[in-house]
């Protein structure tokens, strides 16, 4: 086990300062992510308002049921992530490992559904601009613009999830080796913040992409 000296990095005075610095650092990083996705939301907002009908048409081409399922899966993964942080804070190694694995599985389920169910289906139907776009209805180029934003926004989101899965793998290995305890769990907590943020992005993506224009 590590002695308490090694728990605090040498630029910090104590654990409290280290923890606060880590939290503030992660929140600032999330602020940059808000602005990064924000640029995409800006473009989306512009075109959504310019081409409202075409965007609604495009939205109807997506499967809202699958989108809702994926939303539920991601929320569940946020729960397991929060429970993982709790386990780390209370020093429960077995639970920590269990909840990290659960989070990873739920995240993987989300990605599998997205890539191997939705996107393959979209490609087969000819909804992918630049690669295979055969939609021939009215305002096809504006519908293509919708699809652009759909693929770019969910794609960038998925990239963030893949990166998250990578970091979770590293944390899993560290947890397995007993590197976390009640005094030393910053990394888990910071990863939790990141994971919840990725969930929040999806919470906005789901209605804006899948639920446009009522389906009645």
């Amino acid at each position: 086990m590590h002695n308490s000296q090694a728990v605090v990095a040498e630029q910090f005075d104590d654990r409290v300062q280290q923890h606060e610095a880590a939290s503030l650092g992660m929140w600032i990083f999330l602020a940059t992510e808000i602005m990064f996705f924000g640029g995409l939301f800006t473009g989306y907002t512009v075109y959504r308002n310019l081409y409202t009908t075409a965007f609604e048409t495009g939205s109807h081409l997506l499967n809202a049921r699958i989108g809702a399922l994926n939303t539920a899966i991601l929320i569940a993964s946020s729960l397991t992530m929060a429970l993982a942080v709790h386990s780390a804070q209370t020093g429960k190694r077995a639970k920590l490992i269990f909840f990290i694995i659960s989070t990873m599985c739920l995240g993987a389920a989300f990605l599998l559904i997205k890539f191997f169910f939705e996107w393959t289906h979209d490609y087969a139907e000819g909804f992918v601009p630049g690669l295979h776009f055969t939609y021939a209805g009215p305002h096809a180029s504006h519908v293509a613009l919708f699809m652009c934003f759909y693929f770019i926004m969910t794609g960038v989101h998925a990239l963030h999830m893949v990166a998250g899965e990578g970091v979770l793998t590293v944390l899993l290995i560290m947890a397995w080796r007993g590197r976390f305890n009640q005094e030393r769990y910053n990394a888990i907590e910071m990863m939790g913040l990141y994971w919840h943020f990725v969930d929040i992005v999806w919470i906005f993506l789901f209605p804006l992409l899948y639920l446009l224009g009522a389906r009645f």
Partner: protein
Amino acid sequence: MSEHIAPLKIYFFVFVALMVLTLLTWRISYIDLGQWNTVVALLIAVCKASLVAAFFMHLRWSASVMRLVLFAAIFWLSILISLTIGDIFSRHVLPQPQSWHAAAAITNPSATAQGR
């Protein structure tokens, strides 16, 4: 120890609330509310995001500077979106003033035939 350990109950309540809100937003999209569909959907999304931020991300128990960071990002993002949208939607607001048409008609009658 300044790090707050939230009681597990809270996580489960928030989880249930999030699931309910997800179901709600999905089903409401099948009801015709006209313009309000978007507003309702976004409001529900903001509620869900707030729950995740406040409880899963511990913002409720964090130092105020974290909240400041979040609100700063939201504030400046709204500046980006609103001023950009403001440009897009004010591009063709006012037609040319009537007096210009009148002046043009006097000096060059044939040109005004093509005017907007």
